[in-house]
């Protein structure tokens, strides 16, 4: 027995000596293109998914995952955008084709990404709207232009691995634990002074709540608001918030900010009503008219925040007009998911146009990363893509909406400018309209 243990120990030691870890560097495979002409005439291009007639792209969305995430409508947004571009003759004489619509099923994102890269012969990956983004490393290593929904921390790059080919719908930097001055701004304009913070005890939710707390540490004095109640220990799936609401009532909370899913936000709304607590909610993920159709009265006077121009914006920017027109023309459902697909397609096409007729994947990536004032025809506030992968910009912008009579009403600083922008790193609540 002892000799067996000894042999095993020697084996393990040898193994340790013989083994090392594979580096994470991968090979980038992009086809080389010739020339640098950016005219609209067709030039022979040697790149995956590109023929004389079409440019093929493909995406992965969580569609049937029983654990959650129903993001298949993002494909509709891409289809609608491509229909618009193709109706005008396509790009460089080629039609844009959404050639594959993959479902990553039960968290099978990595394999589906692998399939997309190896089986589908696509030039770019879009949309990538997934509950979990386990295929991100593979996409980074391949260098393929990738466009999707920044709801996973994997979109964000670091100084060592900047992930320059991953493009979220409104920037790729997702700083969950950072301060968010827009919340302090909402507290200020809604005349709320005592803030309650609720979150699940899962890392993303907790970090997000810490960001809210930090916000009021920095801007609280100026907004005349402070966090008086915080509970980041809620279990996922909680249905009863009566104790938390009771304590918030005792603390005089008049605004609640949460990092939780719809179930908990609705449970909170019902409990606030039951205990007659006059508090509004800040809904970072609640911009959905269908949601208000069901639960709108629970959120009367509450605020939502979007990174894009809301559908209620007047006058509508060109990008929004096009989106609404082409979603109707292609029978797609108007909503955040399809808009993400639309924005992904818009950025992709913008990159293609900027890369010129003899484009390749690397050129498209580089071209996008040179954009310093991208706004998707007014659908987004200005994005500086030279800076959006691995660090936060100097401002954060978005649209503020208030719920009135179960409908969203934009709250703007200046007429015709849907976005409110907040300076970061100054410690002062500075707002500008965009």
């Amino acid at each position, binding site marked *: 027995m002892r000799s067996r243990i000894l042999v095993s120990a020697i084996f*393990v030691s040898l193994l340790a000596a013989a*083994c090392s870890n594979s580096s994470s560097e991968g090979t980038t495979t992009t086809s080389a293109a010739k020339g640098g002409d950016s005219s609209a005439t067709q030039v022979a291009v040697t790149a995956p998914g590109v023929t004389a007639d079409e440019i093929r792209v493909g995406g992965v969305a969580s569609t049937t995952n*029983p654990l959650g995430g129903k993001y298949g409508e993002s494909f509709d947004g891409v289809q609608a955008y491509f229909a618009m571009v193709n109706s005008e003759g396509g790009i460089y004489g080629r039609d844009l084709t959404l050639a594959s619509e993959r479902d990553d099923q039960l968290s*099978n*994102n990595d394999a*589906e990404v692998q399939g997309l*890269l190896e089986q589908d012969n696509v030039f770019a990956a879009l949309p990538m709207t997934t509950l979990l983004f386990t295929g991100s490393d593979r996409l980074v290593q391949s260098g393929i232009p990738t466009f999707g929904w920044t709801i996973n921390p994997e979109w964000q790059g670091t100084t060592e691995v900047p992930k320059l080919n991953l493009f979220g719908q409104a920037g790729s930097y997702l700083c969950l634990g950072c301060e968010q001055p827009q919340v302090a701004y909402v507290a200020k304009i809604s005349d709320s002074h005592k803030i309650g913070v609720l979150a699940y005890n899962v890392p993303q939710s907790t970090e997000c709540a810490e960001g809210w707390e930090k916000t009021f540490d920095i801007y609280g004095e100026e907004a005349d608001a402070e966090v008086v109640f915080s*509970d980041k220990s809620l279990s996922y799936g909680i249905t009863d918030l009566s104790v938390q609401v009771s304590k918030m009532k005792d603390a005089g909370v008049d605004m609640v900010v949460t990092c939780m899913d719809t179930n908990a936000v609705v449970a909170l709304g019902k409990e606030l009503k039951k205990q007659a607590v006059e508090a509004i909610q800040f809904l970072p993920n609640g911009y959905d008219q269908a949601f208000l159709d069901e639960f709108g009265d629970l959120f009367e006077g509450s605020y939502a925040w979007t990174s894009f121009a809301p559908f209620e914006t007047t006058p509508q920017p060109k990008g929004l007009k096009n989106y609404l027109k082409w979603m109707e023309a292609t029978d797609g459902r108007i909503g955040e998911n399809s808009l993400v697909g639309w924005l992904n397609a818009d950025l992709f096409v913008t990159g293609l146009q900027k890369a010129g007729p003899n484009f390749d994947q690397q050129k498209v990536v580089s071209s996008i990363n040179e954009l310093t004032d991208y706004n998707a025809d007014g659908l987004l506030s200005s994005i500086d893509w030279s800076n959006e992968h691995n660090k936060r910009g100097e401002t954060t912008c978005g649209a503020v909406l208030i719920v009135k009579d179960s409908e969203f009403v934009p709250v703007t600083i200046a007429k015709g400018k849907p976005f409110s922008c907040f300076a970061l790193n100054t410690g002062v609540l500075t707002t500008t309209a965009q």
Partner: protein
Amino acid sequence: MVDLLEYAVRGIPTGCVFALLAVGLVLTYKTSGVFNLAFAAQAYTSAAVFYVLRKEQEWPLFWSAFIAIVIVGPALGLLLERVLFRHLRGAGSLAKMVTSLGLLIAIPEVVKLFFGSDAKSNPPPLWYVRRTDEWLWPQGSKFVLDAGQVTTIVSTLVVVVGLTVLFRYTNLGLRMRAVVESPRLAELNGVNAERVSMASWMLSSMMAGLAGVLVAPLFASLNPIDLFTLLVAALAATVVGGLSSIPLTFFGAIGLGMLQAVLAGSLPTNSVLATGLRPGLPFLVLFALLIFRPGLRSNSETADPLATVDPPLPVPVAVSRPRWMSISSRTVGVVATIFGLLVSWFLLDGFWLAIVISGVVLAVIMLSLTVVTGIGGMLSLAQAALAAIGAFTTAQVVTATGLPVLVAMLIGAAVAAACGALLAIPVVRLDGVYLALATLAFALMFESILVPLSWVSGGSVPLAVPRPVIGPWDLADDRYFLLFAALCLTVIALAVIRVRQGTTGRFLQAIQSSPTAANSIGISGGRSRIIAFTLAAGIAGFGGGLLASFAGRANYQASFPYVVGLVWVALVISAGARSIQAAVFSGIMFFLLPATLNRVFSWPENYLEAHQQAPEWMQNLLGLVQPNWALPVSFILFGIGAFTYAKHPEGIIEARTNSSVTALLRWTERRKAKVDASSSVDAPQVSA
């Protein structure tokens, strides 16, 4: 003190929700002997029907509720009893629980195929309002109840009183319990066991329907996972009642609801204690009750006195077949494995290769179930958690120390084995359902308490785990990784075979066959079971590290949630808990089946796109098939696989192998007899 009382009172409505679910589970167990995890799926079915009738079709409340609870609920129960559970009346709790796991997986997917998988927002309450908060009572009070809470409290009280009366004072209640204990003995006493069993299932299923309709409005949309999450939170109450007492279960559930509320109110928010204790409270209570409640340890299942007249299980194929067939079979196995590897190496593209590798790696984890359940006879629902422990340890060791990932995997396996041993020491003293529940409680505690900690899981961004480099071979190449994974699988499979054939395996087999006889000759069940549990945990931990290395990150949500672990268990046990082939088959099918079905179901759409002039009837027919059926149909098939456990407790792979071997043996015997006969005819006559 006043505050504590206030918090406790606030916990009562939640306690009633727990009670409704827990009492339903106890009712099913009392009347059918099945610890029915599919209760949540049955509840979801009635809730979905109620949603469609009440909200989408705008039927009156009474008729919607009547159809969903009184018609659909019992009809589903009747169907399950006729098709499945009547064949399981004499089976052990393991067989029944595995079958219920299969139903838990399959039923929601079947319902979604009928009613659509789109989100069913704002489930309607069982009251004349659109939403529960539209009717509040008493208005202006400190403790206001909404329509959902009032209907739940009233229904729970009625159900508890009704069921208590049924079991304590009526003949039917007595007969129901008698049929569960021994249907044959009950029949000898003039009880129509079939009819009583049907009535039991209809009643318990109606109870599930009622629970589903009442509980669904707690959520913003109707989702089977939410109902199951609530059900597992209520499990502790069922143990308070010892799986038999309705009143005790009720009080246990109320107590649990109150304790949750008191802790939420009294513990300092965001303290280490609050963050650790509150989310995992129901599972901590469940685990503590199972371990420390004295009655449960000695509460072995009541055996059917007439069970001895049942024929024994078929002898394992590996034992029954002749030596030449074993050698041939193993040769075929080796050749098939090499052939599979060659095909994967040369013919598969990256996607299919990734599917195969994932399957091979999962097969390693499945082998842990072969050890703990197949050899050890213990249904562990914690193998996914143990695999996650291995994955996290691997990731943390690599990140913190820079050690080679292969060494880190071995450390991960050792840590998982140590955790398995610590878990095994108290758990192996339990039997059947209780043991399964204790392991489930462990998995849930791990998920709710430890996984959120960044020093365990790495925080919001999963920790990276590199691929190994062994000498000149960089396993970053998927083909090399496949060979490595196959080698690991082979080595571990051989080790498992050694264990099965060795002293521990034989001891465990003896204990499973006859615990009393085994004890009388000095075989210690506890020690052998702890060894099996520890070994299985180590294998799961190694598999977890391997999976993390292949995926590049130790991602709990992507690979190891307890719900996914339940699917693994159903799959491997229905394929054959004792069989190595079954573990390999299950691991590969878990990934291969959905991917293959996706291609199959995508074909009609692709065909129609390529043939836009196809006749209208063909367009209509093929247009019915949707690519997004792949995962639901896979889950339905996985679930149906578990149903076969009733007929083939040895597993479907083992059963098929057995019948093939029997047929082959018969054929060789016939052939031999024929040859003998012909040789005797052809033999030259010897003259006298």
